[in-house]
Each structure stands twice: as C-alpha cells, then as structure tokens.
C-alpha cells in the first residue's frame, strides 16, 4: 500500500532523513515514533506529497507520489486523509463548513447529501451540536475531532495522523486514540500515526517504526519493541515511560560517577 524507498531529505545542509525505507501493508496502522527533530513529521509529509525528497521514492499503491504533479498528484491525494498537528481548520469557516468544504469543492455531491454526510461524520467524532461554532470557539480536543471529521469525510483509503494527541490533556488524548481505533475498525484504512504517546499508542497499532538518526532503527510489532534489548530502544522507552534510571535521577547522581567507576 505504502512503500518508502531510501528516502533522503535535508534542509539548509542539515540532513534530517538519511535513507528511510519502510513498507506499510494495506489495512495496517503503524506508529511512527522517535525523539523530537528525528524527522517523523517530515517523513509523513513526504507520504502526503507535501514535500519533495532529495533522493528516494514514496510509492502509494505503486505510484510514486514524490514525482507526481498536477492532476495526477491530486488523484493520488484524493485517497489520502491527513490530520494535522494543529488541526489546520479554516478559521473563517464554521465546523460544519470546514467538514463540508472538501465535498463541496472536490465533488458534485448535492447539498442535502453533503449535509447528511457532514452531520454523520460530526456525530461519529462526537461533535454533534457544534456545527455552527468557529474553530476559535471550541477546545483543542474538539478542533482535533473536527479536523478528523474533515479528513474522514472523503472516505480515504490512507489516513496520516501528525501527533494527534499533542497539546491535549491525557484523558482527551486517550479519547482521540480510542476514536482513531474505533474509526479504523469501522473503515479499515491504512494508517500512519506520528506520536509521542508511548506506550499508549501501542494498543491501537499493528507495528511500530522507530526513527533514529534519520533512519528506521527498528520496525516491529509493539510487543517486540517493548521487549527489545537494543540499548537505543531501551533508552527511548525509559525516557517515554518515565522509568527510573538504574543509577537514580541524573540530578542526584554525583558528577564524577563515571570517573570513579
């Protein structure tokens, strides 16, 4: 479904991706994890065709999205849904207008059908009754839900989530993850979730891709990832899970501990 081959990308001489290769099967949802600045969102934007790689290919259903342009690129994108980190709702439109926008502009769907589909989608994400509110009048969690409804309204085959829980409190974050899981079970899309929600996201994904130093350092099932003996994975998990360092918190360790040993 999605195949990334030897992807390289740098910005002003700073190399972010150094040969990323990854394959995501149809109907599978993967979590893309790693430290901040490791290029997770950059990789996701390459899959969506929003960025062009310096080298490498991104194949979506066998078509290279990286080298596509114009109508051909739009045709590929019509199969994609993208949940942006900040929601990216249009400020000047209400929640209803935002969700209806892709249907109104991209399809020849009738007014009544658009209304029905938008209301159904808003109900699915738990936003019934908020149709007439503007993005500035609703909470961060509701913005994410509205953005999710907008991304899903076109029935995409592939859903890309860029940090869907960032900026939300743990309970709302969990509800968004549960919502993604429920929708995936209903629609069966192929999904990529860029997230820092480790290990909570592991409950809803099939595989985990761990990005480190511009490459996919580990790509395996969540259980395997959690029991990995690789020091880099253990260090990342220790940081994410808040597990205590075997030698105690860094603040209280003597500075010359290494030398003494």
């Amino acid at each position: 479904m999605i195949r990334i081959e030897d992807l390289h990308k740098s910005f002003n001489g700073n190399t972010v991706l150094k040969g990323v290769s990854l394959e995501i099967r149809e109907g599978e949802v993967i979590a893309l994890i790693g430290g901040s600045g490791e290029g997770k969102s950059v990789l996701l934007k390459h899959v969506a065709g929003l960025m062009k790689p310096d080298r490498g290919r991104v194949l979506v259903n066998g078509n290279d999205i990286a080298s596509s342009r114009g109508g051909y690129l739009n045709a590929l994108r019509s199969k994609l849904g993208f949940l942006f980190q900040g929601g990216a709702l249009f400020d000047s439109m209400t929640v209803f207008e935002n969700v209806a926008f892709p249907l109104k502009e991209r399809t020849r769907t009738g007014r009544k059908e658009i209304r029905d589909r938008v209301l159904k989608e808003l109900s699915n994400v738990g936003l019934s009754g908020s149709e007439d509110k503007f993005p500035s009048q609703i909470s961060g969690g509701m913005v994410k839900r509205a953005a999710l409804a907008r991304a899903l309204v076109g029935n995409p085959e592939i859903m890309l989530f860029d940090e869907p829980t960032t900026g939300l409190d743990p309970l709302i974050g969990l509800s968004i993850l549960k919502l993604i899981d429920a929708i995936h079970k209903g629609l069966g899309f192929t999904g990529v979730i860029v997230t820092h929600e480790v290990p909570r996201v592991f409950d809803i994904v099939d595989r985990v891709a761990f990005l480190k130093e511009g490459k996919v350092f580990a790509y395996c099932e969540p259980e395997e990832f959690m029991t990995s003996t690789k020091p880099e994975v253990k260090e990342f998990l220790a940081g994410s899970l808040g597990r205590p360092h075997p030698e105690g918190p860094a603040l209280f360790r003597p500075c010359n501990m290494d030398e003494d040993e």
Partner: protein
Amino acid sequence: MTSDIEFGTLARMELIRRLGAFVLLRLYRMGVMGLFLVKAFFYAVVPPVKIRRVIKQVHFIGFQSTIVILLTGCFSGMVLGFQGYYSLSRFGSDAFLGPMIGLSLIKELGPVLTALMVTGRAGSAITAEIGIMRISEQIDALELMGLNPYRYLVVPNFLAGLISLPLLTAIFDVVGIFGGYLIGVKLLGVGVGTYFGEMSSYVGMKDVLEGLYKSLSFGILINWVCCYKGYYTSIFTGFGAEGVSKATTQAVVLSSVLILVWDYFMTGLLY
C-alpha cells in the same frame, strides 16, 4: 609569512563564497517571485474562478478602503489647493489652479497615494492572513484536498485588486478635485468657472487613461508582493508569529518602494 599569505587568500575566498551565496539566494528568490506572478496570471485566466471569493475580496480591498481614500483624497486636494495657489500666484497664473490640481491628481497623486493607502490597509492584512494560513498548515490542508491554493488565496486578490484600485483611484481624484475646489474657490477666491473651465480644457482623456493604467498595474503589484510574502512566510521569513510579522513588514515596505519605482517607469513610458 607564508601562513599570513594563506590566511589572506582564505579570507578572500570566504568573502567571495559568501558574496556568491548571497547573490545566488537573491536570484533564486527573485525567480520564485517571478514564477509566483506567472502562476497567478495563469490561474486567473484559466477557469474556474472563485467568484464568491473575488466579490468578498473586492469588498475587503475596495469597499472597506473607501473611508481612508475619501479622507486622504480630500486632504491631498486641499493641500494642492494651497500650495498650487501660492506657487501659481507668484507668476500671475492662479487661473491655472484647476488644471494643476486635476493633472497632478489624475496622472500622479491619485494612483500613487491610493496604491500606498491600499498597501497599508489591505496589503498588510492579506500578507498576515495568508502567512497565518501557511504557518498553521491551512495551505497544506488545501493542497491535500486536491485544491489549488492559488485559486483560493491568490487569484481572488489579484482580480479584486484589478477591479478595486481603478475605482478607488477615481474616487480619490474626484474627492481631491473637490478638496482643491474648497480651498481654491471657496477660500482663496479663484472663480468657479475658471477652476473647472480651465481644468476641462487642459485635462484630456489621455491623462485619465494614464492614471487608469497606473492604477491597474498597482493593483497587480500590491497583490503580487503581498500574496507572495504571505505564501512563502515559513520558507523565506521564518516560522511562527515572528515570521508573519517579518513577512508583513517586508510586504508593506517592498510594495511601497516598488509602487514609487514602477510609477517612475510608467510615467517615462506614458509621457
């Protein structure tokens, strides 16, 4: 001694390298800006055009600028009335106050001052709006929906500029001439027949067309610069609120300078 020479050579090489990089970057950005204009023209003439957005932008750029244009037009005409009368009366030519005000406003001050006022009022807002849409990924969202951001954000502004600027300039000219009339005729005693009679004798259709061409070109220029600066906010001016702030400042400064520079060339061409 040898190392001193080597150091001097290396320093010169570094200077040349930096200068080269600077020139290349400027050329690259000018190229991007040129391509932006070409794309905007292309999508403006190839349907579909988003008529509702065009009307909305005509309301924003044109209608909402009317009060500012009325005020600046009136006071510019009144200042011209005073200055023109005192200058002309030294040569005993105060009868020509009408043509002087008419020609100054229609050929020069009307288009230029209108363009500068629209840049300050609407151009800055256009840059800020598109810039915020860029940093909050709303433009990316448009692209992902398979929709062309030029059609939604750039073309409506271009067309609205082309419609609004000549109309606002016409309002500026009329109100300015009325302001000159208030000072010249009502305050300083020039005859009303002399004021308007001499004006209609000396101001021809060629002068009106010169003002029209200028205002049309300024309509394109303002929207070209302001839309471009907003569209490339996070790429050329930096991220976040600071990036939008820089883009807005640069848009207003560059538009204002280009209006005056372009006015010079237009005047030279149409003289």
